[in-house]
C-alpha cells in the first residue's frame, strides 16, 4: 500500500515490548480525498461528501469515513511488515476527522511470543489528530519467522 519498505521482514528477536514499531504521518485529509475514497470504496454516505447534509446531522461539515482512518492504520502496519505477516487488526472509532486534519498512526509492541516456528507480535495502534486527540485505537497482530 505504501512503498516497498514493508516487503522487508523485521527480525522477531530484535523486537522488544514497548518498541514503537509503526509511525506514519499522513498528509492533511482533504475534501477531494474524501470524494476519492467515497468513489473508491463505494461508501456514498453524504455525511462524508456533502457539507449541508453533514450540518443537518449535527457536524460542522463533512467528516472522514472511519474506514479511511482504518485504511491509514493498515497502511502504516504494511509499511512495517509485508501484508502476509499482517494477521489481524481491531479498532474502535473514537472521534471524527475533518478536512485539514493531520493523522498520525503509531503502533507499539505490547506482547511477543514464539509459538513453534513462528513469532507472534501483538501491538497497540492509535490514529491521532494534530492536537493529539484520538480518532481510532485498537490492536493488531503480526506473525514473523523465527529465523
Amino acid at each position, binding site marked *: 500500500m505504501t512503498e516497498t519498505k514493508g516487503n522487508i521482514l523485521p527480525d522477531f528477536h530484535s523486537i522488544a515490548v514497548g518498541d514503537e514499531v509503526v509511525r506514519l504521518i499522513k*498528509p492533511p485529509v482533504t475534501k477531494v480525498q474524501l470524494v476519492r475514497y467515497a468513489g473508491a470504496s463505494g461508501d456514498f454516505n453524504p455525511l462524508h461528501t456533502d457539507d449541508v*447534509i453533514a450540518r443537518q446531522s449535527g457536524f460542522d461539515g463533512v467528516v472522514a469515513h472511519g474506514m479511511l482512518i482504518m485504511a491509514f492504520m493498515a497502511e502504516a502496519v504494511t509499511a512495517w511488515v509485508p501484508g502476509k505477516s499482517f494477521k489481524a*487488526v481491531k479498532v474502535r472509532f473514537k472521534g471524527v476527522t475533518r478536512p485539514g486534519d493531520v493523522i498520525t498512526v503509531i503502533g507499539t509492541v505490547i506482547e511477543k511470543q514464539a509459538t513453534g516456528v513462528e513469532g507472534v507480535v501483538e501491538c497497540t495502534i492509535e490514529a491521532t489528530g494534530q492536537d493529539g486527540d484520538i480518532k481510532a485505537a485498537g490492536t493488531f497482530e503480526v506473525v514473523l519467522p523465527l529465523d
Partner: protein
Amino acid sequence: MADKSKLGDTYEFDWMVEQGKIAEFVDAVSGHASPASVKRGSGESPACSDTVAPPTFTTVPIMWSGVLFQAFEDLAIPLSSIMHAEQSYEFLGEIHARDLLHGAMEIKSITEREGRSGPMEFVLFETVFTNQHGRTVVREQMLIVERKKP
C-alpha cells in the same frame, strides 16, 4: 430502532476484484496525487496476478455490491443515523486482482446499551470472503451504532 427479526439474516454476493479498483483505492488512501502504486504480490497463488489488494480492501465489495445498504434498509435503520463504532479483520489469505470473491455477510447481533444520551442500538455484521479456490481470505466484523440526531 432496528428490526430484530432480521437477526441471523445472511447476504451472499460475488465480486470480481479489478486491478483498477485496487489502484483507485490505494490512491484514495495515500492522499497523494501521484499515480497508482500497488504492491507486487508473492506469486504464491498460481492463478494470481501480481497486484495484491491492501488490507481493508474488502470494504469495496461490501459497499459497491450494495449488501450493506440493503441490510440497513431491511433493518429499517436510516443511513443518516449510522456511526461506525468498531471494525476488525482477520487476514487469512491474500486477495489478488482478478480473484473472484464470494462474500457472506451475516447480521450477527443486535444489542441495546445505555449511552450518555439514552439507549443506543448496536448492530454487528460479520462478513466472510472466500476466493475462487474455496479458500477463506478475510473474516471481518463491523459494529455500527444507530445515532440519535441532536
